[in-house]
């Protein structure tokens, strides 16, 4: 279970460009739930995700995973509990390393690393098996540099890498935003499959209301660094993009003016 309580983050405090990115953000995600998070530009989606992963430290508030307070822990200390896939396909993998080396890094996520060889026959066999599930032919390219793959292929491998080790929560940061529509839907389907098969607790940040409603069990909308909408279960079923917009307007008393959010 992930629990974030009253998180506050202010960038450049006390300057003209002060930005209160999180203003008392709270969210609880029970074990096994797949939450989609939407919000317009600057709503605090990425800031929230980076706070959970430990890339950003919060000014106040607490973050706990399975009851353990991790607020003061660094990103690498949280790695045993947090898996993530980045928005930029370049960010989630090491371009200069091969596919198998990248996967060998991920297979030891959050564990002690020894002086034994990072790769061996049984690991390669396991990687090959996992990659063959993607149907991208990557199982025959284990020793290719990952920089040679397309953005979509790299995101697919990133997803596999995130699922090689058990995690308490999987963070997906608009991981299909940089892909073309066809590849994006492939990666999304893959995401849904991996989350379901491994019964992962997951949080997916997305820019698209459609995606937010189509995937996962619960949808949370952020606005100005706070949760303004939280729908799940029966209330969420049959909900469409216009309904979501209406709900937003009712709670906030203002119009949503981010075209990207409406059109995608």
């Amino acid at each position, binding site marked *: 279970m992930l629990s974030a309580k009253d998180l506050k983050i202010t960038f450049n405090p006390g300057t003209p460009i002060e930005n209160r990115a999180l203003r008392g953000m709270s969210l609880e995600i029970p074990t096994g739930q797949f939450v989609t998070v939407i919000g317009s530009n600057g709503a605090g989606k990425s800031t929230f995700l980076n706070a959970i*992963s430990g*890339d950003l430290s919060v000014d106040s508030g607490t973050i706990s995973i399975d009851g353990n307070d991790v607020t003061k822990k*660094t*990103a*690498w*200390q949280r*790695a*045993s509990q*947090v898996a*993530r896939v*980045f928005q930029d396909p*370049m*960010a*989630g*993998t*090491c*371009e*200069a*390393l091969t596919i198998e*080396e990248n996967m*060998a*890094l*991920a297979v*030891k*996520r*959050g*564990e002690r*690393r*020894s*002086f*034994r*060889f*990072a*790769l061996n026959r049984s690991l390669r066999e396991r990687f090959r098996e996992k990659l063959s599930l993607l149907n991208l032919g990557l199982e025959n390219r284990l020793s290719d*540099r990952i920089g040679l793959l397309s953005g979509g292929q790299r995101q697919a491998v990133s997803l596999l890498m995130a699922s090689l080790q058990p995690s308490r929560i999987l963070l997906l940061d608009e991981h299909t935003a940089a892909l073309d529509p066809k590849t994006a839907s492939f990666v999304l389907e893959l995401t849904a499959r991996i989350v379901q098969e491994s019964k992962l607790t997951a949080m997916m940040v997305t820019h698209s209301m459609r995606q937010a409603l189509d995937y996962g069990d619960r949808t949370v909308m952020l606005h100005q660094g706070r949760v303004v909408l939280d729908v799940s279960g029966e209330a969420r079923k049959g909900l469409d993009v216009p309904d979501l917009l209406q709900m937003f307007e009712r709670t906030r008393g203002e119009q949503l003016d981010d075209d990207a959010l409406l059109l995608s």
Partner: protein
Amino acid sequence: MSLFSMMGALEIGLIFSLVALGVLISFRILNFPDLTVDGSFALGGAVAATLIAGGTNPFAATLAAMAAGALAGFITGWLNVRLKIMDLLASILMMIALYSVNLRVMGAPNVPLITSPTVFTMILPENAPSWLPDFVLRPLLLLAVVVVVKLGLDYFFSSQQGLAMRSTGANSRMARAQGVNTGHEILAGMALSNALVALAGALFAQSQGGADISMGIGTIVIGLAAVIIGETILPARRLILTTLAVVVGAVLYRFFIALALNSDFIGLKAQDLNLVTALLVAVALVLPATRRKLFARKNGGA
């Protein structure tokens, strides 16, 4: 060029291939532009020469020199990781600090080792057989050292720990997300890199008959030159080949220099060494692009 000067070039080339391997770790693997090298090469020489002149066993003195180099690299890393000083600046600070440290260690601008025992005199037979003279044996001994170091690095960088170090330089954000303590990796990598450079300094002092305060000047350029020449001649994706390329690059570099300085018709003298180095590095840097252009023209229209 005589056989004698060729063997001399090989000997120094092999010593500098250790520098090149160190530079490969900092510049290429950790992506850390490290100028500490100029100081830690002289530090290695200073520590080894001073200890040997004081009667310490040459092997122990060489190990002590490596430890001193590792400490120097560690401090550079620490300045960057803990105190957040920019990497290049941190290494420059360490480089000039080491100049004073080296003078303190030696207590004089130089420490001669003409009559003292060295690792070379201890391993090699006193009276070498005439068919295998000293100037052939010494490069052979150094070759053995370089091969051991190269294979050791190859092994390390294919281990789980080594992979973590490589990911730190390649994509530190991803490395942290995988649970790699990137700060520690930088400290360890910088220590390893400068330990190798100090080992080279210690061997250089013992091979050339003493340590000198100015022996480190330009070491980083020679190391970089070796890395760049190696990568140009043997462009490789696999690290095992890259380490080989770098060793070959260091030896070739020394041969080019010896050739340039020994060819009377060019009229170059020892004082032109740094000019020749700069020219050589410039050529090596331009060569890959020129080669691509030439090939493109050959296949023109395709």
